[in-house]
């Protein structure tokens, strides 16, 4: 299907001259002459959805525009503003007319640049500026008093703007807010922050309208609610159906693993056949390895580059600009390139590993060919047998136009605390009015007054039952009963800590020449998580920035490495998939497994694998959970197949092993992947009452006991404590050198949990973990779903379906979080060492 009738009408982003004309629509009457002429001069005519947005804007209505990439969506968002601004006298007071917010700094800059073209060509005299973390402080200050007509910025900058004293004046006459890539930010903590900012804008500028721009989503209603009350929906024309192929040879499909080594020659072939390819992988480590393997085979020296978030910014910019110039044949990248910047030249998308969600797949496919009328081409490369199923399920879903809907999160209480503090920084506030305003933001519509009051209490004095901190309060009541900041330092701390992205502590990686003393300077290659670097000993090799590197040691605040000739790195830095399998896709995979009549489409090895499973064990029916037990070596195994994603399986594994311990099964460890959970023990678990073992009551005391000591949970607490403003962020480069005593948030967690387990920050942590790192919500749904529908099979040996799970054991084993074991082992090895003659 092509857009708007018979003539194809590519309008890539909005400034590309190669577009054939389109027949004028009836709605052209909404278009002022200057604009109609401009469209005509480019050989375009306005799209129906662009006109629809102009019409709604004239009526003062808020609109959500859902359209695929390449539909002239961004221009549609700005047209009404440009038309309104063009009608204003050239000499006018400087006031902010339109505020544009994008989740990506780079996108804001890119859109601003693209917007300059029509503005210049029509001679509109509209001032356009960006405001990001990179904008010089002097300009940011000036923007508050002498704003441009259109300001393009990010959610964090919006939070800072509304927390400033100038906010009422700055936003008083704001006419429009444009939110880009809304589907990518809604339902995240940044979305919470943005929703609170929008609620404030509604109070500061009651007359403004909102425009939301979104890729195709399963259910637009949450986005409409997010945007503004009374938002209307406009849909752009659908693009051409993508062409999705799945690379799965009949000869060989690996049992397990995530690297798809077997397929690299084919991937390189696909790159060779296309003009420019994006090769998506799911983790940074996978990006490194894929890049390396491609280059090992790349005899034609095709220009293949690497792009991921840990590389030094300068290096990323280099790749991006080479891409824009069309100098690259392929970029191996992670989700850093999922969104945003338009690279018209990309005509081929390759996804290595399973897509994890249908919407993510659509998004990635959309990166190829920003032209509506031509099908985007994508190649999926499953790296193991389960992923073949997942790729098939994802392709079916995309072709059927079905997408995964997200489970809607409640707005984070930690984000709320940050916003409450920011509100006080702008001006003293009335608690009733602020509560009403916050409850108008969709993520907080179910926030109770009691929760709000507890958050306010937390911001003011820490919110502790033991009222010790009144004299150190950060907020105080004024004589009229309003809340104000107690000290200018509080506002300063707020500005330093604004935002909801908490990075793992990172460490610089510096490359030095061989033979020089470690630490004697070197070029920065980028940054790696400290927890990864911590595991290395000098001499270990690992891949980073496309090279195999040898770890030399850490000096001060950087890790020093040298190049090595070793073709293979010793230390794999693979940490499993970053994105959990979506609930929607999981269900489709389960269905596919449960229906043998659908197996015909699968490659022969996969088909055979399932057939043997059917014969040797059981193929679970829809809705059933299969639990197998069997002996292997000296150990007894229990393997189940919930297909609920690694995070939920990991939590299930932690809880079930606790139970097995109590049942004296002597569990030794477990491993979880996206599809299955495998547990091994000394005793045979086949005789257990599985209904009881998988009973939902594990989410009570067992969960509670585990949370007390879980590292993942403590990490969630740390993030919440930083966002809520209890503790400050660590800023790279601000750490003092020399002897330093650091003080872990774990200590705070332990003390708070002991004395006030119901504290609001612990509640925020639980809610965060339930949908985040521990995925408790999903686990709970699964346990409820399989109640009374568990089928068990005792086997004398491993089943075909269990093989992938067992193969991953050595790589992804989680031996509980038995801290004492680590200490004991360390002591034993020390003794062994000492006793060696």
């Amino acid at each position: 299907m092509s857009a708007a009738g018979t003539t194809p009408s590519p309008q890539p982003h909005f400034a590309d001259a190669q577009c054939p004309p389109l027949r004028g629509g009836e709605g052209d009457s909404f278009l002022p002459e200057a604009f109609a002429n401009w469209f005509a001069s480019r050989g375009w005519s306005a799209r129906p959805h662009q006109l629809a947005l102009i019409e709604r804007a004239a009526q003062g209505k808020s609109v959500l525009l859902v359209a695929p990439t390449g539909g002239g969506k961004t221009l549609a968002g700005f047209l009404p503003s440009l038309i309104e601004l063009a009608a204003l006298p050239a000499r006018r007071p400087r006031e902010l007319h339109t505020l544009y917010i994008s989740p990506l700094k780079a996108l804001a800059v890119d859109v601003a640049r693209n917007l300059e073209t029509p503005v210049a060509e029509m001679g509109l005299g509209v001032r356009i500026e960006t405001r990001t973390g990179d904008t010089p402080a002097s300009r940011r200050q000036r923007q508050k008093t002498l704003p441009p007509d259109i300001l393009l910025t990010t959610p964090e900058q919006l939070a800072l703007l509304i927390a400033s004293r100038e906010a009422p004046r700055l936003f008083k006459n704001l006419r429009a807010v444009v939110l880009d890539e809304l589907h990518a930010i809604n339902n995240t903590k940044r979305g919470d922050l943005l929703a609170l900012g929008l609620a404030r804008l509604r109070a500061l500028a009651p007359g403004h309208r909102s425009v939301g721009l979104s890729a195709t989503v399963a259910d637009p209603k949450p986005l409409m609610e997010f945007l503004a009350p009374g938002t209307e929906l406009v849909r752009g024309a659908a693009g051409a159906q993508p062409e999705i192929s799945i690379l799965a040879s009949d000869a060989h499909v690996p049992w397990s693993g995530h690297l798809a080594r077997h397929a690299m020659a084919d991937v390189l072939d696909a790159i060779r056949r296309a003009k420019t390819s994006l090769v998506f992988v799911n983790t940074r480590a996978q990006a490194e390895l894929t890049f390396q393997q491609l280059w090992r085979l790349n005899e034609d020296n095709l220009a293949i580059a690497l792009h991921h978030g840990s590389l030094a910014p300068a290096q990323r910019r280099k790749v991006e600009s080479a891409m824009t110039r069309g100098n690259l044949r392929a970029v191996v990248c992670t989700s850093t390139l999922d969104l945003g910047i338009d690279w018209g030249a990309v005509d081929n998308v390759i996804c290595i590993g399973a897509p994890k969600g249908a919407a993510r797949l659509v998004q990635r496919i959309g990166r190829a060919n920003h032209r509506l009328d031509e099908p985007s081409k994508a190649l999926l490369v499953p790296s193991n047998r389960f992923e073949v199923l997942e790729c098939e399920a994802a392709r079916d879903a995309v072709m059927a136009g079905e997408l995964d809907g997200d489970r809607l999160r409640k707005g984070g209480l930690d984000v709320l605390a940050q916003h409450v503090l920011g509100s006080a920084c702008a001006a003293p506030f009335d608690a009733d009015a602020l509560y009403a305003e916050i409850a108008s933001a969709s993520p907080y519509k179910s926030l109770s007054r009691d929760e709000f009051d507890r958050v306010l209490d937390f911001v003011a004095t820490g919110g502790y039952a033991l009222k010790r901190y009144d004299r150190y309060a950060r907020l105080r009541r004024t004589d009229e009963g309003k809340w104000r900041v107690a000290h200018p330092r509080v506002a300063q701390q707020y500005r330093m800590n604004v935002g909801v992205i908490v990075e793992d502590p990172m460490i610089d990686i510096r490359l030095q020449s061989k033979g020089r003393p470690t630490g004697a300077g070197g070029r920065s290659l980028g940054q790696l998580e400290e927890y990864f670097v911590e595991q290395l000993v000098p001499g270990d090799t690992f891949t980073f920035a496309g090279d195999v590197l040898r770890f030399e040691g850490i000096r001060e605040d950087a890790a020093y490495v040298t190049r090595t000739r070793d073709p293979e790195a010793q230390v794999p830095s693979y940490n499993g998939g970053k994105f959990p399998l979506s609930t929607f896709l999981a269900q489709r995979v389960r269905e596919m497994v449960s229906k043998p009549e659908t197996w015909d489409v699968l490659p022969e090895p996969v088909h055979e694998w399932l057939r043997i499973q059917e014969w040797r064990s059981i193929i679970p029916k829809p809705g059933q959970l299969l639990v197998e037990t069997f002996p292997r070596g000296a150990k007894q195994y229990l393997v189940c197949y919930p297909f609920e994603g690694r995070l939920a399986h990991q939590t299930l594994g932690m809880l079930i092993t606790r139970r097995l311990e109590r049942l004296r099964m002597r569990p030794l460890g477990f491993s979880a992947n996206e599809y299955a959970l495998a547990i091994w023990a000394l005793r045979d678990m086949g005789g257990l009452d599985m209904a009881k073992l998988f009973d939902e009551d594990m989410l009570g005391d067992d969960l509670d006991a585990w949370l007390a000591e879980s590292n993942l949970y403590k990490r969630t607490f740390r993030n919440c404590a930083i966002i809520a403003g209890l503790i400050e962020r660590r800023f790279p480069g601000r750490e003092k050198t020399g002897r330093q005593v650091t003080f872990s948030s774990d200590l705070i967690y332990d003390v708070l949990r002991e004395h006030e387990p119901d504290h609001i920050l612990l509640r925020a942590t639980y809610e965060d973990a339930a949908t985040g790192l521990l995925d408790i919500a999903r686990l709970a749904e699964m346990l409820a779903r399989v109640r009374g529908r568990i089928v068990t099979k005792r086997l004398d040996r491993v089943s075909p379906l269990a093989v992938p799970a067992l193969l991953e054991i050595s790589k992804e084993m989680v031996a509980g979080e038995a801290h004492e074991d680590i200490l004991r082992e360390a002591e034993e090895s020390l003794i062994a060492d000492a006793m060696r003659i």
Partner: protein
Amino acid sequence: MTDDLSIDVNGETLVLDASGAAWWPEQATLVFADIHFEKGSSYARRGALLPPYDTRTTLRRMAEAIARRAPRRIVALGDSFHDRDAAERLDDGERAALARLGRGAEWVWITGNHDPAPPSWLGGAIVPEIRLAGLLFRHEPGVFFQPGEIAGHLHPCTTVTRRGRSLRRRCFVSDGRRMVLPAFGAYAGGLDLRDPAIGALFEGAFGAFALGTARVYAVAGRGAFHSMRRKASEESQPNAIAIATVESP
């Protein structure tokens, strides 16, 4: 407890308690270092409203160690209070709990850089250092080696890495001639063993003894203990944060 780990320092045998205290059976003396009462409220004063319960947790842990060992004498190795007016910020309950603590035992409060003058109502002796049999108790390890020195001040910590997981724990450090105790306070931070401030104290080999849940483990050190996997840097602790300012130990 059969699992007790003990080491000899200058000829005196000390039992390393899993709480971080050192127990000297011969003299029925229990030693705590760097208790840092009211560190939480000290941070609150500067705007970080940390849970105001650190003193209670610390008191509970001290009471448990005292009940376990039943000492005749208790030595606090300095920095018992996080700042000069920390003692005034204790509430009545905490003050009473502190007064009850080790009732009947003789208390020795050694002064530290954080608490050069602990409150006199504490009872017991308040001294800059004290020599008992073969041991010399003081807050800060001396620049010049003194046999039998038992000190705190440095808050030693060590990181143990096994099978890709790492664990950071407070630890005792000793070469058999002197010893540094781990900090005891619930909010007391840590300084990595690799820091030169710790390494400089020992000329040759030394051992590190990490606190487990119910016992202490000999895990690392230098020299004879070379199997230790060296820790990256102080900041490498996964959840480490610098609150407000860097603290000088």
